């Protein structure tokens, strides 16, 4: 019996040990590749709890409130009575957690990011999805006021790991623009800077993230001439070393089409989702090309044929929000980085809320005056706009007036320096607006279309411009007529281009010499026409 028992024991041992061995090896390979077992995942859980606590304190400011938040009492829903007129998009790159990191103009520190996000939440902003955004832009589908779209570029790991716990706490979601050549494919396994296909899948599964394209391998600098000068992959013709020449139009088109289509395919096949958007690397949609002016059109066509939406960075002279309408396919993003403070960001977003008429501005606080170029500031109930040291002119416009159509703006102005200033209306962006130019020798009604300025109607009745005296000026727009006034008296009027059928208000200065024009504005009033 003991011998029999011995045999049994030996068999049991062998079986158990082999089972343990295989169990060990199997578990090892499972755990090695399992996303949920990664140290980072545990860190993220911990971070989530931490952020929850911090946010609770921030939002409620008291222990009781914090406990309430902890136990799941939802933060108050934003009032949905108002509907969004425009949707701003935020662009982030990496969120840096290393202490002592200095802002580099691209990335943002975790503390700053958290401050911004918490402030947004407290102010009542909520994030929307890419498909909701597309519906809004394409068909004007109503969205509640204070909707924003949060995006991250490059598919970096540090755009996700520090960020997701915060998104989770605030109930926000975001879009990740992936450079698919760096995230998909077998040879990306060693790359821990960019997110892997596995990680992207897990992000998608969490429901907080969407993915879109940021090219396949097109986010780089390549040779554009024999001397080795570099240009952007997408918007420049590349220098072919082997053939000692630049690409032809066809070669260029072919090359970018392969890359763009490839990136779309990578995401569709790898993640099983439809790709709704494409973000231009460097924000260059052809506007930054060096050797190929025709790039813009080809790019535009290629991308529109593949993606419903394309994303670029907003220019300094543009309205930051995206308005539904015919130009919905190319949308603007606010590049938020370490150089932009939370207050600056909130200012941009809050002032993007569409303003209603009649409108009065006492300039006691900044309601949304954005410097298109030059410098502007508000002080003592006055708006001052002046040219920078290297420019002749300055322009400032009021955010949240993009959809104004028929109105009359009057203001008290004092030209401190320079030849002329203008009251601007139907401002769409820095290249498209209507202006009443007031100079020492006359008044002119002009319009700028695509950057080309033409005078519509002039009069030699001049304004007594003096740095000691205020002058009351007025600009009126109604339908496609515009008129300029001094005081109550109409001086010139004319017909403006139908392309300038809506737009906001602004002020401009000009002088022959640089750094020599500045304007004070006060007592601004805008009334609806009729």
């Amino acid at each position, binding site marked *: *019996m003991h011998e029999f*028992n*011995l045999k049994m024991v030996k068999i049991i*041992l062998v079986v158990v040990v082999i089972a343990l061995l295989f169990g*060990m090896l199997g578990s090892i390979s499972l755990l090695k590749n399992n996303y949920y*077992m990664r140290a980072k995942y545990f860190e993220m859980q911990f971070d989530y709890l931490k952020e929850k606590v911090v946010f609770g304190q921030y939002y409620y400011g008291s222990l009781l409130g914090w406990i309430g938040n902890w136990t799941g009492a939802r933060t108050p829903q934003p009032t949905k009575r108002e509907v969004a007129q425009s949707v701003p998009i935020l662009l982030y790159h990496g969120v840096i957690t290393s202490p002592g990191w200095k802002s580099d103009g691209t990335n943002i520190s975790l503390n700053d990011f958290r401050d911004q996000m918490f402030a947004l939440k407290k102010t009542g902003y909520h994030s929307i999805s890419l498909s909701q955004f597309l519906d809004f832009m394409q068909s004007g589908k109503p969205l509640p006021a204070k909707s924003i779209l949060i995006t991250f570029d490059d598919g970096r790991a540090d755009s996700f790991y520090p960020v997701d716990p915060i998104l989770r706490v605030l109930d926000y979601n975001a879009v990740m623009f992936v450079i698919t050549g760096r995230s998909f494919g077998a040879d990306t396994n060693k790359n821990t800077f960019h997110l892997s296909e596995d990680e992207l899948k897990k992000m998608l599964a969490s429901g907080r993230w969407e993915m879109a394209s940021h090219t396949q391998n097109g986010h780089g600098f390549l040779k554009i001439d024999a001397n080795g000068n570099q240009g952007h992959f997408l918007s420049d013709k590349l220098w072919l070393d082997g053939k000692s020449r630049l690409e032809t139009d066809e070669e260029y088109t072919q090359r970018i089409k392969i890359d763009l289509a490839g990136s779309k395919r990578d995401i569709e096949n790898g993640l099983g989702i439809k790709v709704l958007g494409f973000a231009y690397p460097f924000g260059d949609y052809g506007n930054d090309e060096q050797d190929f002016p025709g790039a813009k059109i080809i790019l535009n066509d290629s991308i529109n044929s593949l993606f419903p939406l394309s994303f670029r960075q907003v220019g300094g002279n543009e309205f930051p929000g995206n308005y539904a309408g015919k130009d919905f396919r190319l949308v603007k993003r606010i590049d938020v980085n370490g150089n932009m403070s939370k207050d600056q960001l909130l200012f941009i977003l809050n002032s993007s809320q569409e303003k209603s008429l009649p409108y009065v501005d006492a300039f006691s606080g900044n309601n949304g005056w954005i410097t298109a170029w030059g410098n502007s500031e508000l002080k003592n109930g006055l708006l001052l706009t002046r040219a920078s040291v290297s420019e002749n002119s300055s322009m400032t416009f009021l955010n949240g007036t993009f959809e104004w159509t028929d109105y009359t703006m009057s203001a008290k102005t004092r030209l401190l320096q320079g030849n002329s200033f203008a009251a601007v209306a139907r401002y769409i962006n820095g290249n498209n607006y209507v202006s009443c130019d007031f100079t020492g020798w006359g008044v002119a009604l002009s319009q700028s279309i695509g950057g080309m300025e033409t005078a519509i109607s002039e009069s030699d009745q001049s304004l007594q411009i003096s740095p000691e005296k205020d002058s009351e000026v007025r600009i009126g727009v109604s339908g496609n007529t515009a008129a300029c006034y001094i005081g109550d008296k109409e001086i010139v009027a004319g017909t403006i281009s139908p392309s300038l059928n809506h737009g906001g208000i602004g002020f401009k200065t000009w002088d022959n010499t640089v750094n020599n024009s500045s304007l004070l504005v006060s007592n601004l009033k805008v009334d609806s026409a009729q």
Partner: protein
Amino acid sequence: MLENQAKAWGYSPVRLISINFVDYGSAIAWRRLFFHTSLIVSAAAVLFLIFLVKAKTTTEMLIEPYFFAYTIFVTTFAMSRIVSAVLYERSIATLTAEARSEYGDMQKKYEPTVAFIIPCKNEERDITNTITKCFQVDYPMDKVEVIVVNDGSTDGTIGILKSLKKTYPNLRVFDWPENQGKRWAMAVGFQVSRSEIVIQLDSDSYVDIKTFRNLLEPFQNIKVAAVCANGIPKNADQNIITRMQTAYYFMSFQVLKAAESTFDTVFCCSGCCSAYRKSAVMPVLYSWLKERFLGKPVTWGDDRALTSWLIKRGEKTVYNRQALAYTVVPSTWRQLFKQQLRWKKSWIINAFFTSRFIWKKKPFMAFFYYFPLILISLLAPIMTFRALIYTPISHGILPLYHIIGIILITALIVIYCRFVDPKNKFWPYLFLWSFLNLFILSFMLIWAVIRIQDRGWGTR
């Protein structure tokens, strides 16, 4: 009922199968159940963490497949030891039960003649207690012999022995003017004893008088040639060195020896207290005595060598957990290292000897002998060096996971130890022993190889 009947017949059965962890029949059963459940859960958690650590480090290890294979080996071996140890109770129970049934008559107690052989040198302090305990065992005195060999003592040992002989006339004392060595003393003891079972006892150790019979029980099975007692350091609480060793002894006996005993092949019936069947030892006595290595006689590792000779003859060597014996462990670092060096040397020499026959005689055990014991022990210094010194210096990587792995495996063993004997309070020191082993003792093997020809004892 059966027990009462047996008691009526004057037979008090020694409980061989006192399996602590199944005794749930009292008011504190819930507490014990909770304790055991928490142990099992901890074991599962530790096992999981081991897998996690391995998973975390495989990417680095796949670049070094040998190191990875080594760590897998060590982990599997440790787990196999625990599994074997779990199966031990059953094995020892069936061994004796079988013999008992063969023996037939339940009424008859198994009481063979027994001889204690105690070689001693300069043991004036402890020898009295050792010998006294031998005469106090719970056993008919007419079947007990006590033989002491005074092996060249330079202190007052002989005087004490002479006075002890007055108290115990049956005490046989051999007085040798010159030290011949433990092996000779034992050989003479075997030769002159008139008993069936010979118990080799260290002069600073003594048997537990109540559990003495357990040491003899397995001999009922005719195939058993040696029984190893459960060594417990009596100076356990002296200092941190002794506490560490107590923890080590705890593991060494309750896990390692038990694991080996499951298959009836304990490789070393430890010299502090082991019993041998005289008729099994006599045929190998001379070969054992005359053992030489590299031109010199082998002066230590007598216990290991004798056990090996018995195994070579196909005998069964077992360990009985219930047979307690108390011994003394070194209490200074110097003594400890000298002892460990001696043990390593004897292990090396014995390895040469055993390797040659083990695969023939006990093929199953051979697998567990060569691969884990030999391979791991030999590779340990190399792998440890690589993990703790080479890789940190050349790659700047701290051996954090290696150390964590060692802690986890020790934790697994500790959990099993807590299961087997919850009252033992020395288990935390096993971690300290692990580190001592990792950083120092595993390298001692190299020094042992270098100094193999130095056959001195060093301690005492």
